[in-house]
Structures are given as structure tokens and as C-alpha cells.
């Protein structure tokens, strides 16, 4: 099949001055047809960007993914604004019927019985103010983005209970620096968490000024939370990038394993037929009769123990998803093999003395390739969503590791969700990844279908 690339083309044109057009191989044709589909190309690029982001998570993120500070829990996304600490006011109507703002003042007694007043403070989220700013510490416009330093203010509520408010200090702006060196070594780049390269560089970040005692004594904190922070005060943007390493690679590895099992079982079943076929196919029917999520959850109980470390858990999740998902593809491949083995080229290969293994591997399975690739692309989302479901239910990846499903788990509390809606941003990434795979898969399917008219759907 792929050999046709190297074979000399037979000239079809009667004009001898024009060189004959080279014959395109099937993969080249597929690629060219795919390139004509704009949506599929967009999907492909989105995926490249997403995988790139997660591969270079350590370098691109401003902090370490386990660096948390419970004081900074659930701070809002700095891209969209910031928390301002203001005096709490009550709206009252005065004698003329106008609404006026009355500062809320709390009266306390100190240890000598003297009463003193203190204004209650509260914090307010303001869009596009208090987040990333393009003014330098002197208040002039610069092209370098700055963030405000975060400070913790102690105030009292009406019952006299202390409350801690984390907000910006509007007077302290810190420049976002590029190629910041961190003190500890961390991962710079990796392939799905393997082949890691370590280093100390972050692409961007903020550094607390060393001589400023407000930072050294802990009153002020220099952090950049592009997309907010999570329940434990870790940077959500960083955790999303790292989470992509797990969530995105589960799909790829899972589909490879599952397609592998499907190809082997389907190939054997279709090629040999008879009792092997009957037995294997009844088994796939059995697997397919168990609702997918139930099967995944039951398998999870068998393979994953709480004592396992994150790497082991991750591997088992991939295996579980593949074990639960191979049956459908196995059946389709069996059907294809069943018809392919009767083709002339398969028969002639047998007649020439090729063994069963060679016929299956060299002649039959390569012809299922386009189906396999299209199906694989369309099925990757199910594996991504499978991992999301497991981790979301608390049965998959566990803290302190990050995966997109696990990050969404915090949003299960409607209280957190209501007051910190940025916590669902990881879901947006899942959505985009699945959408991109669907775009690409649809394009591939059209490109691989010789009857499809390109450029027009349906």
C-alpha cells in the first residue's frame, strides 16, 4: 500500500513536454484532502497548541503546581480583575429620601473597658481593575504588565469575629518579569510526564523585591494568578497546564492500547473464524452489555488502590479505560478482516506461501489503517472524558497531582462554585480539547471516505 510512493508513475498525459504528475500515495492524498477542510485544520492546530502547552507546562507556568498557600485560597483571576479592600458601607435613606452610604463602624471594648471604633472592611471584586495593569509603580504607562501585590487585612464582622481579607495593595505594583529563575529546580518540559527536563526557569512570573521588608515579613505576597487560585491557594493556570499532561495523554495512550487490543482480537477473530471467532465475539458482546461507566468503576476497584502513587494510578487508569473500550472497535475490525481475507491479494499471499501472521500483519491489517485512524481520533474524547469522570468522582488521579477532572472536583460544592466561578475554567479546556478532536476526527472521516464531496458537508 505505501510502496506505491516509490513506484514510477505511468504517464497518462498525451503531451510529452509536460512531465507526468507523480502518483500520490494514499497517506498524501488523505493529508491533502484533510488540508482542504478548514474546520479540521483549526481542530488540528488547537490540539497542537494544547499538547504544546501541557508539554512545556513547567516552563510556561509562573509557579510550581504544588505551591499553595491557604491564605490565598480562591483568589480571583488576575486577567479579569482583582479584589479591592474597601470600607464596608450600608445604604440608608436620609431625611430627604436620598440614598446615602453610611460606613459600617464596629464598636469594641479594649482591655481597659474603653470603647473604640473601627471601620469594618470588606472586599469587593472589580472587573478590569486591580488585575494585570500596564502602569508602573510610579503610575506611568508602560508596556510591561504589572500585577498588584497581595496583602491580608484583618477586620471584624458584626459579631466581633476576626475575618481575613486577601486583596490587592493598590500602592504596590510589581512588574511581571520574563525568564524568571526560581530557587528550586522544577520540571521544564516533559512528554506526558515522562522524559522530563529539569531547570529553574519560568517563562514569566513576579519576584518579591528582596530589600522590601513588607515582603520579607510576610505582609505582602507577590503572586500572579492569571486564572485565579484553587481551594488550597495554588495557581489554577499552572495546575491546568500540568493537568493537561495527564488528561490529554490519557486519551492518546488509552486509544493506542485499546486499538491494539481491538486489532489483535478483531484480526484473530475475523481471520481464523470458527470457534475462536464465536468465543471472542461472545466475549465482546458480554463486555458491551455492561454499561460503560459501571464497568470502568468496577475495574477501578480491582486495579487501583489508595496506596498507589500517582504514576501507578495514572497507568492503571489508562489500562482500565482501554480494557473497557476495546470491544466495539474489535468487532468492527473483525468485520473488515472477514471481508479483506477473501480479497485476491490476501489469497495470493497465502498461495505464495506466506504464513498467517505475515498475511494478517502485512496484508490485512494495513488495509484497516484508515478506519483505525479515523475511529481513534473520534474516540480519543471518550478516554479524556473517562479520566475526567473518574478523577471528578474522586476515584482517579488524587491530590496533589493535577488533572482536569480533579480540578473540577472542587466545583462540586455549590458554595465555592457560586463565589469562585473561575474554578470551572478547567472544564473549558476539556471542552476545547474534545471539540478539537471532534473537528479533526470529522475532517479525517470525510477525507478518508472516497465518496465524500469535500468542502460540502452531508
Amino acid at each position: 500500500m505505501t510502496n506505491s510512493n516509490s513506484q514510477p508513475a505511468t504517464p497518462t498525459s498525451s503531451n510529452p513536454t509536460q512531465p507526468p504528475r507523480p502518483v500520490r500515495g494514499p497517506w498524501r492524498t488523505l493529508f491533502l484532502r484533510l488540508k482542504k477542510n478548514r474546520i479540521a485544520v483549526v481542530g488540528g492546530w488547537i490540539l497542537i497548541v494544547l499538547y504544546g502547552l501541557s508539554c512545556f507546562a513547567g516552563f510556561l507556568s509562573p509557579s510550581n503546581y504544588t505551591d499553595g498557600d491557604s491564605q490565598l485560597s480562591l483568589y480571583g483571576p488576575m486577567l479579569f480583575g482583582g479584589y479591592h479592600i474597601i470600607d464596608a458601607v450600608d445604604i440608608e435613606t436620609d431625611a430627604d429620601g436620598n440614598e446615602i452610604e453610611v460606613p459600617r463602624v464596629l464598636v469594641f471594648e479594649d482591655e481597659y473597658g474603653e470603647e473604640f471604633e473601627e471601620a469594618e472592611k470588606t472586599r469587593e471584586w472589580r472587573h478590569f481593575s486591580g488585575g494585570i495593569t500596564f502602569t508602573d509603580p510610579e503610575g506611568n504607562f508602560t508596556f510591561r504588565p504589572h500585577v498588584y501585590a497581595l496583602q491580608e487585612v484583618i477586620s471584624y464582622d458584626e459579631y466581633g469575629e476576626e475575618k481575613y481579607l486577601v486583596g490587592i495593595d493598590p500602592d504596590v505594583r510589581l512588574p511581571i518579569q520574563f525568564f524568571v529563575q526560581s530557587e528550586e529546580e522544577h520540571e521544564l518540559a516533559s512528554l506526558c510526564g515522562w522524559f522530563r527536563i529539569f531547570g529553574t526557569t519560568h517563562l514569566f512570573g513576579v519576584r518579591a523585591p528582596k530589600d522590601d521588608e513588607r515582603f520579607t515579613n510576610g505582609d505582602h505576597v507577590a503572586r500572579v494568578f492569571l486564572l485565579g487560585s484553587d481551594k488550597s491557594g495554588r495557581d489554577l493556570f499552572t495546575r491546568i497546564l500540568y493537568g493537561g499532561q495527564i488528561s490529554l495523554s490519557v486519551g492518546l495512550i488509552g486509544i493506542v492500547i485499546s486499538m491494539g487490543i481491538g486489532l489483535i482480537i478483531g484480526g484473530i477473530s475475523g481471520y481464523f473464524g470458527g470457534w475462536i471467532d464465536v468465543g471472542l465475539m461472545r466475549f465482546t458482546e458480554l463486555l458491551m452489555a455492561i454499561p460503560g461507566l459501571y464497568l470502568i468503576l468496577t475495574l477501578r476497584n480491582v486495579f487501583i488502590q489508595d496506596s498507589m502513587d500517582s504514576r501507578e494510578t495514572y497507568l492503571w487508569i489508562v489500562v482500565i479505560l482501554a480494557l473497557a473500550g476495546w470491544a466495539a472497535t474489535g468487532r468492527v475490525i473483525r468485520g473488515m478482516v472477514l471481508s479483506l481475507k477473501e480479497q485476491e491479494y490476501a489469497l495470493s499471499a497465502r498461495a505464495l506461501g506466506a504464513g498467517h501472521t505475515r498475511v494478517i500483519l502485512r496484508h490485512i491489517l494495513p488495509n484497516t489503517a484508515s478506519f483505525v485512524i479515523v475511529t481513534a481520533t473520534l474516540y480519543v474524547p471518550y478516554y479524556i472524558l473517562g479520566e475526567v469522570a473518574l478523577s471528578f468522582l474522586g476515584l482517579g488521579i488524587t491530590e496533589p497531582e493535577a488533572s482536569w477532572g480533579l480540578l473540577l472536583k472542587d466545583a462540586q460544592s455549590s458554595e465555592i462554585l457560586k463565589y469562585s466561578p473561575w474554578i470551572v475554567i478547567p472544564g473549558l479546556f476539556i471542552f476545547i480539547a474534545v471539540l478539537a478532536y471532534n473537528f479533526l476526527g470529522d475532517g479525517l472521516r470525510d477525507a478518508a471516505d472516497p465518496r465524500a464531496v469535500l468542502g460540502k458537508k452531508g
Partner: protein
Amino acid sequence: MWTFIIRRLLTVPLLLIGVALITFLLQRWAPGDFFTQMEMDPSKTTADLLRMKADAGLMKRVSTDTLVELSSFRTAGSSFSFTEQGILRDGQPVASTDVRTELRKFTVGLRLFEMDEQGAVYREISSLEGFGRWCLGALRGNFGLSFQHRRPVFELIMERLWNTLKLSLAALVIAWGLAVPLGVLAAVKPGSLPDHLCGLIAFFGLSIPSVFFALLMVLFASLTGWFPIGDMVDVVNYDSMSLWEKVKNQVHHLFLPAIVIGTGTMAGYMRQTRGNMVEALTQDYVRTARAKGLSPNKVLFKHALRNAINPLITLFGYSLAYLLTGSFLVEVVMNWPGMARLVVDAIFAKDEPIVMAAVMVGSLLLVLGNLVADLLLALTDPRVRLS
């Protein structure tokens, strides 16, 4: 046709037994069981624990006769044997309290035995034996008692099953009610604005993870306050409501989860509808009908749609198969008191009877749904012959 139905129906019990066996074995292979946690609990004596395990069908009390038949065995560095009178260690009679730690757990052959403080010995029930017992019980409609809730599993499942079905059926109505009109609309003029919009909706619906969508809806509900979050009814006031208010309240609670599930499934059906309609509209009979001067609506609904609907009917059958499990994650996120919560909790706690029964009900619906899909196809399409 009838032979096909009967043959397919005959395979259903076989499939179910297979599914039950796989699920049962998987659960037994999983390390630990529901009672593992309790073993750490100092307030539970071994006797209590073993009695509970025996009640749960995981262990069985062994009579003295059987113990005597075991003859001697070696464990913990000594050889033991049971006699009518008591226990012999290395040939010397000992009190059962003296060998409590040595004989707390011992194996003879491959079988695990456990002894409690009073000297009562229990043996482990093997996977296959346990499965046989479960099957016998299930045939009589007895799915056992839930370990957690100490109530018949059948009751528990039935309570939750109806809640889940209510949600799924509502979602089904939404999905089909939107899919067919939108699909037809998109197919009338391929490439037009409505077509592109429908395509966009389809991609959106197919791609949005139900967890994310459900969370967005919960966020929407909590920010606007227009919809209640969680539960099926207003738990506090429901009993004092009039019938009409009760219905309103239920629909109010049902709306958001049903929309989430409905949109997700709608997309696929809409694409299918559109595809079929586009194909049907290019057929000769449609051209003939148009040439005869029939009104466009008549051509569309009487000629094209009727022919395009066949594959949809099959799809409808398949959608029945996922009634029970399609709403799983949405139920968890939106706190719907359906099967999902029950099953997730049961899986966490290794509550075997509930998991078994839930998988059985899910599989039954799946298998029957697929059968219905095949039958519907044969009923509506005379070209399909089942044999």
C-alpha cells in the same frame, strides 16, 4: 421474525448471567471488602465482624464435624487439628482462647478460615460458590441486603430507578423534540444560515463534557436564583403543596438537569436527522413529488421525512438502552437522587449487592434497548429481514 425475537430473547438471560459473573468476579478480585474498614475499629469484636460477614454471605460458620474432617494442618509453626473435644496443638489439647492469635486466620488447602474469640470457626466462601448463591437468590427476586443501608437492595434500587428514569425520559423528550425539527430545518437548505447554526449546535452538544455543562448550569442557577439546585423536589415544603404546585415544583427541579442531558444527546440525533433528510431530498421520488406539483411542505413531511425517519427509529431504540446510565455524571453534579449517587457510594464502600443489582438493571436495559432497536428497524424497513 418471531424466531429472531425468540432467539434474541433467549440470549438475554445468557448475557445477563455472563455479565453477572464478570461483575461478581471483578468485585471479589478487588482487594478488601466492605468490612475491611471495620477490622481496624477496636469497638467491633472479631465475633461481631465474622457474624456480619456470615450474614453478608462472605463467610460461613463451620460446624465441628467439618472441622474434624480437616485432619491436621500446619500454621504459625505448629501443627493443629480439631477433634470433637477441642483443639490439639502438636498433639496436646489446648483451650481455644490460648490459640486465638495463632488461629485467628489460617488456611487449609486453599481455603481461608477465621476463628473468633469464642472459638467459632468460619470459612471463606469462594467466588464461584458465592456467585452460585447470588444467582439462586436473584432467580427468586432476592438481590440481598445492602451492606451499608441494611435494607433489601431491590427496594433501594427501585426507589432510585424511578427518579433516574424520570430524568432520562424528560431528557429524551427534549432531545428528540429538538433534534427532529432542527435536523429537518437544517436539511431543507444545506449550506444556509440555519444549517450552519444547527451544525454549530451539534458540535457544541457533542463536545461539551456533561460534567462541565452541568457545573455551568449549577453556576447559572446559583447566580440567577431562577432554578433550584439539587434534589428532585423542594424538600421542606413539598408535602404541604397542592397537586398543581407539586407538579410545578417537580418540573422546576427537573428542568436544568434534563436540559443538560438532552442537549448532549440531541446533537447526535440532529446530525443523523439532517443527514437522512439531505439524502432523502435528493431521491427520485422527491423529485417526482415536486414535479407533480405537490406543496413543498407535503413533499418535505409526507415524502422525505417518512423515508428519512427509519434510521432514526433505530437510534431511538438505542437511546432507550442508555436511559439508566446516560445521566450518570449529571446526576452526581446536580445532586439528583437517582441511581448514580447510590452506585458511586456503593462502589466506594464496596457494597457488593448494590453494585451487582445496579449493573444487572443497567445491562438489562442496554440489552433490551438494543433488541428493541433491531426490532424497530425490521418493523419500519421492509428491506430488512431478520433471521
